[in-house]
């Protein structure tokens, strides 16, 4: 039998571990990115490492925030109807954000 709660628990931890090096890579480049101009920012995505890391960051970040926000809703929201609505908003947001990010990334590379 599948245990849904255990799966969520596990995915939250696994995504957390995966996000550690991805976040560090991003934060490492952050100051340079802020100080550089448009062409400089484009140059950042001129190699496969940046593209792959950024794509993974978008996917695992969205997964992790979906589970984290869902947990907070579970703990603090009593009203069943409101809970359903908020969970739908979270689901939609966590899908739209990485899709917008990845589509933008594809446009930048092409």
């Amino acid at each position, binding site marked *: 039998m599948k245990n849904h709660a255990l799966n969520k628990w596990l995915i939250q*931890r696994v995504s*957390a*571990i995966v*996000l*550690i090096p991805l*976040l*560090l890579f*991003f*934060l*490492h480049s*952050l*100051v340079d990115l*802020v*100080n550089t*101009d*448009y062409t400089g*920012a*484009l140059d950042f995505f001129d190699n496969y490492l940046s593209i792959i890391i*950024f794509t993974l960051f*978008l996917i695992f*970040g*969205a997964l992790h*925030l979906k589970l*984290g*926000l869902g947990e*907070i809703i579970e*703990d*603090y929201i*009593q*009203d*069943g*109807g409101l809970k*359903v609505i908020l969970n739908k908003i979270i689901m939609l947001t966590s899908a739209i*954000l*990485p899709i*917008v*990010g990845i*589509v*933008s*990334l594809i*446009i*930048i590379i092409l």
Partner: protein
Amino acid sequence: MEKNSGPLSPHIQIYKWQFSSLLSITHRMTGVINVAGFFLIVLWILFLALGPEYYNFYQKFLRSFVGKFILVGFTWSFVYHMFNGIRHLAWDFGYGYEIKTANLSGIIVLFLSILTTFFIWII
């Protein structure tokens, strides 16, 4: 749908504040703040894809005093959530439960998060 009037967890209204609970609620708050940070990152890459006019507009905001303040704040929020997350992972594996150890690791997390933010932006 039937209204559930049972108690909510964690009972923040009646909780006696301690260093450990403060770090715990900060973990959740930084988690929520990081969602906004994630949103800004997606917006950044979207503006980069839209072209220089959009990107320069966004860039100008990020380079302003308010923008820098927000960026440094987000950096600390992400770094704190990461270090405290590692602390949580250690607990998941059964390490560091003793009160003294938990308090010490909390202080280390706080110290490391500030130090890392400082290193990223100042050096």
